[in-house]
């Protein structure tokens, strides 16, 4: 059969062995969809209005924005915002994994301790926690001592010089985040099939190793997207630290506003920086997800670059390689 129809057997899906020739490809008139055109037109009007406002509304003060975007005070504040985000997320993720493992452990003491922690830190506003940490000296006194509980202390630190506004913010944001991360990690761990643990156990692996080598890497697929979400959220929540006097992006913008009596340009500056870093984080998240997708689907999702290349190729293929085979009759 293949001899009679040379196109068959290559990539022609129509040419089944018992079919002497394939039917011609369908060329139908597409359904009219006027709704799409109307909605596109309406949207276009809104987009034009928006850009018109951006371009011609003097109150944006674009020349000021350009001038202050890379002003050293702003850039320094951006660095502080990033530091807050990174440190708080590190505490949040490490603490979250620890809490999730404790919560799922068979040890009733550690599982209830983890539950109480999550209950407390999710149950109070993060702003209240920030203020609490900032006023920690009022709770523990001017000195923090480290030593044997109820016994002698070896190390004394001045509370106010140890817990600065910055460390208070990192602690408050990080410890609060740990409570949320623990639920994310727990969901991830629970999503891994129990058969995985059983298979690993039957190979003689011990619990900690099964968690680290088998369960956690698989849980990552479920953990990464909400963690990306949390990181982006943290970048912006770090602006709350301005309340306790940490000079981060929002606080620096506020100060600039008070100096120059121009509000909007500085809010635009702050927003542009936040937008820039959330974009960077989203891209980072995409590649981390791709890394942990190994083995979970038959093919890895393409990188944006690969997508672009493939789109280009598929346009070309459609343009000249699709000649419907079997339009010529094969003798049967």
């Amino acid at each position, binding site marked *: 059969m293949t001899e009679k129809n040379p196109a068959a057997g290559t990539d022609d899906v129509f040419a089944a062995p018992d079919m002497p020739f394939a039917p011609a490809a369908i060329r139908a008139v597409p359904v009219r969809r006027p709704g799409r055109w109307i909605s596109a037109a309406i949207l276009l009007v809104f987009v034009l209005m928006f850009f018109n406002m951006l371009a011609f509304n003097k109150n944006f003060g674009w020349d000021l924005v350009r001038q202050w975007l890379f002003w050293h005070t702003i850039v320094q504040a951006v660095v502080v915002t990033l530091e807050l985000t990174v440190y708080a997320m590190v505490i949040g993720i490490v603490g979250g994994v620890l809490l999730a493992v404790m919560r799922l452990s068979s040890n009733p003491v550690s599982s209830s301790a983890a539950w109480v922690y999550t209950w407390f830190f999710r149950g109070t506003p993060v702003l209240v926690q920030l203020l609490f940490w900032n006023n920690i000296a009022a709770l523990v006194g001017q000195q923090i001592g480290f030593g044997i509980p109820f016994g002698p202390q070896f190390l004394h630190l001045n509370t106010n010089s140890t817990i600065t506004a910055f460390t208070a913010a990192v602690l408050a944001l990080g410890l609060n985040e740990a409570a949320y991360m623990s639920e994310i990690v727990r969901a991830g761990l629970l999503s891994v*099939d129990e*058969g*995985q643990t*059983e*298979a*690993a*156990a*039957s*190979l*003689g*692996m*011990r*619990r900690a*190793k099964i968690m680290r*080598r*088998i369960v956690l*890497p*698989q849980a990552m697929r479920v953990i990464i997207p909400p963690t990306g979400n949390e990181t982006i959220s943290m970048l912006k929540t770090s602006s709350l630290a301005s309340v306790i006097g940490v000079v981060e992006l929002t606080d620096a913008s506020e100060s600039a506003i008070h100096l120059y009596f121009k509000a909007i340009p500085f809010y635009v500056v702050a927003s542009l920086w936040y937008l820039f870093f959330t974009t960077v984080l989203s891209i980072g998240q995409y590649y981390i997800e791709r890394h*942990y997708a*190994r*083995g*979970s*689907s*038959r093919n890895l999702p393409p990188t944006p670059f690969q997508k672009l290349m493939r789109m280009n190729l598929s346009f070309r293929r459609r343009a000249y390689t699709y000649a419907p085979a079997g339009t010529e009759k094969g003798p049967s």
Partner: protein
Amino acid sequence: MTTISVPQSDGSPGTADRPAVEIRDVYKAFGRVPVLQGVSMTVREGEVACLIGPSGSGKSTLLRCVNHLEKIGAGRISVHGQLVGYHEKNQRLHEMHDRDVAKQRRTIGMVFQRFNLFPHKTALENIIEAPLQVLGKSKDVAVAEAREHLEKVGLSDKADNYPTQLSGGQQQRVAIARALAMQPKLMLFDEPTSALDPELVGDVLAVMRGLAESGMTMIVVTHEMGFARDVGDTVAFMDGGVIVEHGDARQVIAEPQHARTQAFLAKVR
């Protein structure tokens, strides 16, 4: 007790007299639902023992008790003379520490109905995982051995494929290779072909047959009566948490004595 003593089958490769697995008066319940109600059975070294019976009869649970994936409520199970999951001191049972349970499981391979390959690792990585992490073998040695095992199950060309890129039959053969890489003295098979397309069953059974011929001690929970008859040395028919009939494989399958066994075999044949 409904069990009967196991007759010695002559000439077949399972005639060594040393017991590999001894199961004595085992009871087990999930909550209030009784699953095993007094099961006793001995599997000798080199024997291929098949467990057959309707679903819910307790055969999978019994198998999972042998490597302590399930705890038994009463009775004793020992593998190669060693009590499973407990130490016995001064006639008292002491629960085994995690570390000792894990050590015990090293010599007992298990193959699951749903394969349970590690999806984030390639076939080769699945096989070398435990030799590297548990036995502390060097990577070169582990990889070389893994390739031998892959060849034995006929999948040398699939070393770098992830489980999702393999058919069910191929996955199950990798799972068998993974268990064999620990050089177990006993292999447990929990319905290894029940999740496979009919045309893939043969490949897996062929690997298991080869393993049986090499003298491996095996306990196989199966619905493949042909395999039980041809490869099994003994067959135990379970129903309602007890062993109803237990004896020479060909005899039990061809001429079942018990009415319940006869009814079951008439249906599955």
